């Protein structure tokens, strides 16, 4: 089978997952790869689970990543990372934003937010990056750039030069937000697991 890098981005509507996937697709194209992305729009975006598939390589057919085939699972929220764990490859890498967003039934006290998600994920996969992306974004004064922090962490594991990433961010982000997004990316790119 042709070599393809599969990246699954999972989180909650409103977390900037679609923008992150667009930057990824752009950087892949500029690196001379074929690329396909599948996005979520519409009703699910109103605070529901959102998942986006990104695939790049010499030749890409399906826009969807098959179960068990994700080289990277980028979890924007802990519960969503757990929900989409079956997509991860055996030796795939799990990158998770250390943030909990409660679904309605948890807010209403009808269901419990699963405790100890981090340790469950770590135990299962053996090599999770738990990133304080929310905290890093807050320090930069913009909670909305969590997506770029996570992209920065992901970029540590992909063989694409940093300037290519920043060029892609530049192309995909509105002018007034370019600098803050690049800053967030750099924070993620230089972040080291504790």
């Amino acid at each position: 089978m042709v070599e393809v890098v599969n990246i699954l981005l999972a989180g909650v509507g409103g977390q900037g997952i679609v923008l992150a996937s667009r930057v990824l697709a752009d950087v892949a194209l500029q690196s001379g790869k074929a690329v396909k992305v599948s996005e979520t729009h519409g009703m699910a975006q109103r605070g529901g689970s959102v998942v986006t598939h990104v695939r790049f390589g010499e030749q890409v057919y399906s826009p969807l990543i098959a179960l068990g085939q994700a080289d990277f699972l980028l979890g924007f929220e802990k519960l969503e990372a757990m929900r989409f764990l079956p997509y991860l490859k055996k030796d795939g890498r799990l990158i998770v934003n250390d943030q909990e967003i409660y679904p309605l039934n948890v807010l209403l006290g009808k269901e419990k937010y699963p405790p100890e998600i981090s340790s469950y994920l770590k135990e299962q996969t053996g090599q999770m990056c738990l990133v304080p992306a929310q905290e890093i974004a807050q320090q930069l004064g913009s909670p909305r750039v969590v997506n770029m922090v996570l992209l920065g962490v992901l970029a540590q594991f992909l063989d694409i030069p940093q300037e290519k990433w920043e060029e892609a961010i530049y192309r995909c982000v509105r002018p007034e937000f370019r600098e803050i997004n690049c800053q967030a990316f750099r924070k993620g790119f230089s972040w080291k697991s504790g």
Partner: protein
Amino acid sequence: MAVVLSGNEAVARGAFEAGVKVAAAYPGTPSTEILENFVKYEGVYGEWSPNEKVALEVGFGASLGGARALVVMKHVGLNVAADPLMTLSYIGVNGGLVVVTADDPGMHSSQNEQDNRLYARFAKIPLIEPSDSQEAKDFLKVAYDLSERFDTPVLFRLTTRVAHGRSPVVLGERKQIPLRDYAKNVPKNVMLPVYARQRHLRVEERRKELATFAEKSTLNQIIWGGRKFGIIASGVSYQYAREALGEEASYLKLGLSYPLPLGLVREFAEQVEQLFVVEELEPFIEEQLKAAGFSVVGKEVFPRTGELSPELIARRIRGTSPFQVHFSRPEGLPNRPPLMCPGCPHRGVFYVLKKLKVVVTGDIGCYTLGALPPFQAMDSCLCMGASIGASLGLEKARGKDFARQVVAVIGDSTFVHSGLTGLVDLIYNKGTGTVIILDNRTTAMTGHQDHPGTGFTIKKEETKALDFAEVASAIGVKRVSTVDPYDLENLERVIQEELASEEVSVIISKRPCVLLNPPKVDKRIEVDADKCKGCKRCLQLACPALSFAGDRVSVNEEICNCCSLCVQVCPHQALKVGER
């Protein structure tokens, strides 16, 4: 140079390059971004039409006038536009006309998953199905040539994974297409029975000519691999199959999938051991092939519901899947359904409707979420505009007394789309029901498109705004009131009064979508921990900014838009609006 485009952006680009002059659409997931992107190009006209039927009629007029025209809708929109489509097939075109239908297998954001390929066969018009963004652009240009060459509208079908899939596209230049001459031609363009009979004969000839053309069309191609499995597929199903089976199988990829190129199928079938049709939803290709005498396997092994996937195709054809799952997730994880945003103007209405325990006939929009827990304040949701007719039907079945506890709720854009005629019926046939127009000044669910009530066109040019109160009055509604859904007490009082009244009422619940112009929140909701009894009344608002921490409510200030509904419903005055 290539750029990454969604299928929808690629269709818009393709229309631009094909020299399309006029485009019309009604927004609907997964089709909406096509018109949004098309109008960004110079020298084109695009509009949000009130509904899909009008959009197609505008497209028809533009084509009649000699221009290339594009008409766009989601799958269920074509039901609304089916009336003009079926007869437009007889009339044909002057300037090329393409109807884009964006189908939604798996119902990511739709009320059904009908397969609109059947419309192509029903209307006897050619069907084109791209499988990625490059094809979306290139095939659309072919569609216009086909439309003009064969004097026919063309149905161009996307599915969610193509429309909202992104892949590289090599851009081209805009082709300058001169307007074709306009000439009055009554026998062709006026479908009186005497002329329509002649045109129908022509349609049947055209169908045969198209079938011959399909045999040689570059949109249909054979990709030879292993000869054990022969796969016939179109659209994204081809991509899934290719992913699943790779070089192991051979493929007949259909880009022009109606009329079917039966000769090409025969050539393919003769050289493979076992023939499969891989298609989502209906056995559209399969049944035609079986009727033509081919021995194919299709829905015997593939589901007729939902989306396909590479895993599913591999398992059903080869018996095993190359995709192994290594990690499991724990059972019983809390689901995360979509919900109304903090500060959503619909929230107060559904809180009150639930409290009043009324029967609610619903409609299509963000507010359909009012059907979900904890509100569960919706009894029906059928299609665009159905709420008003349904409420009248309930009244005629169960009587006027029953109507005293029935409310129809309908969004502003939906009301314009197809609620107006329902309201006319309510008046004309002496109903006594209550209609709430949830006027949030936008088409919210699909991503905030303007509509005739907002006072702006798709290009944000100012225009005459349809005034719902005036329209209701003109239709004959005597009791029209406008309320602010942030004022619960008044809202409840008005709804109760209008329900009690034995004549038609229209209540306009007016406040802009909170995402449209996010309010500058300079206030905050303060919780008085001593007064909060932990009764959870405020949680019944299903606001994502409110949660239960320990035994008290807490407010997430990061997302709170300070609508103050929680302050209003708290029976212990434990919540109040303070300064930030």
